[in-house]
């Protein structure tokens, strides 16, 4: 598996990957999870926050897109403070420039088989924390079903709600922030058995893929 950090200006190779990402997101968030507000006739989930400020963390396996996430700055217009502002009652833990909003986390549905945490979701969790540390963020916000609180805690992350949980379209939903630290990266690696850094130190290029797991 390979992690790609995609942000503007987008190379040709990444443009194709980004297009796959928009289509897969539509399939998952609109067609499967029923998020009707995102439905588009062209079958691509692209919203106002898929702009030049967004960073996409995309995961491929044998050149196929298998999972992804979007990270948007908190000091520019973002989902947390617009669409989901009703879920936020408390202040952010620090200046917005020190954090980022984590949105559109997904793993390709056919990868979610078997009774275990998928290597894809483990890799995206590790990559997310690694990316946040590399960028110098101190916190990551998210809005999600309450399950995310459990999944984050299970990899040793400290998660603090930004407001009361609420029922949104019949689902228990919460806005919260995750503490970014070396400790959090160490914990998620230990909990998932990840043994290596996923994000290339230099600007991402297409390199040979290294096995993710040591065993």
């Amino acid at each position, binding site marked *: 598996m390979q992690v790609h950090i995609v942000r503007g200006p987008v190379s040709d190779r990444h443009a194709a990957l980004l297009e796959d990402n928009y289509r897969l997101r539509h399939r998952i968030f609109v067609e499967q999870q029923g998020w009707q507000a995102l439905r588009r006739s062209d079958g691509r989930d692209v919203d106002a926050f898929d702009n030049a400020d967004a960073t996409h963390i995309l995961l491929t396996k044998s050149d196929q897109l298998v999972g992804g996430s979007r990270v948007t700055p908190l000091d520019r217009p973002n989902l947390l403070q617009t669409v989901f502002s009703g879920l936020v009652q408390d202040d952010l833990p620090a200046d917005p420039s020190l954090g980022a909003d984590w949105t559109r986390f997904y793993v390709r549905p056919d990868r979610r088989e078997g009774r275990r945490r998928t290597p894809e979701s483990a890799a995206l969790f590790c990559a997310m924390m690694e990316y946040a540390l590399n960028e110098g963020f101190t916190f990551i916000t998210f809005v999600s079903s309450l399950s995310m609180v*459990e999944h984050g805690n299970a990899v040793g992350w400290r998660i603090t709600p930004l407001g009361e949980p609420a029922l949104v379209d019949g689902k228990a939903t919460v806005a919260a922030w995750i503490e970014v630290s070396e400790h959090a990266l160490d914990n998620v690696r230990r909990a998932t058995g990840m043994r290596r850094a996923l994000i290339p130190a230099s600007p991402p290029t297409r390199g040979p893929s290294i096995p993710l797991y040591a065993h």
Partner: protein
Amino acid sequence: MNADLMNRIELLQRQEDADGIHKVVSDTIGHYGFERFIISGLPDRGVDVRPFVLLSGWDDEWYKRYTNLGYVHLDPVARNCFATTLPFDWSDAPYDREGDPQARRVMDEAHDFGMNEGLCVPVHLEGGMQGVVSLVGRTDWLSEQQRLELHMLALYAHGRLRFLNTVQTDRRRRAISPREAEVLKWVASGKTAADIAEITGLSARTVNQHCENAQRRLGTNNRLHTVVEAIRHKLIAL
């Protein structure tokens, strides 16, 4: 968000063992009128539930009976976890009282153990695994907001327990022998193999062997790396 709930969430995440979680959960659910509880994964049909139990706050007698007799596979409350994402009252778990005598037996026996009412929080894990946090007590007076708060607390407790469990397994896998730990402590304080041999009365060859064994167990590259990892994982204290 209310300060008390925030404090309890913070406290839960700082616990380092199941006993600590037990205390925080007991105290917290007490404020909502609940007493006993259980936190567990739900096994596939026919599989023993005991290895899946993360924390039992049930009566010993009921716990033994429930696990020995495989009640988890008959219990309508446990079954209903697979059908919903929101917390539900035990009394709302559907089953056929006439056509399903086994389910009825579990419900009736629970009742006899003083567990006639409760709130069940289903926990959806990655990869389709299913967990549960079940609280014993009256639910009729709970507001929607209180239900959401209990839902969230239950998930924090379940997640933290799951993390502590994986880390413990990790620690066991990484364990080094007391002799290896002793040798590494001397390495950490700058002693050479010859120094350590003299201090411990072992041969220099044995000292080196202990270092190499520790290195293999920890999956490290050299002596320095081994010492750093041993300190990081608190296998040796300086």
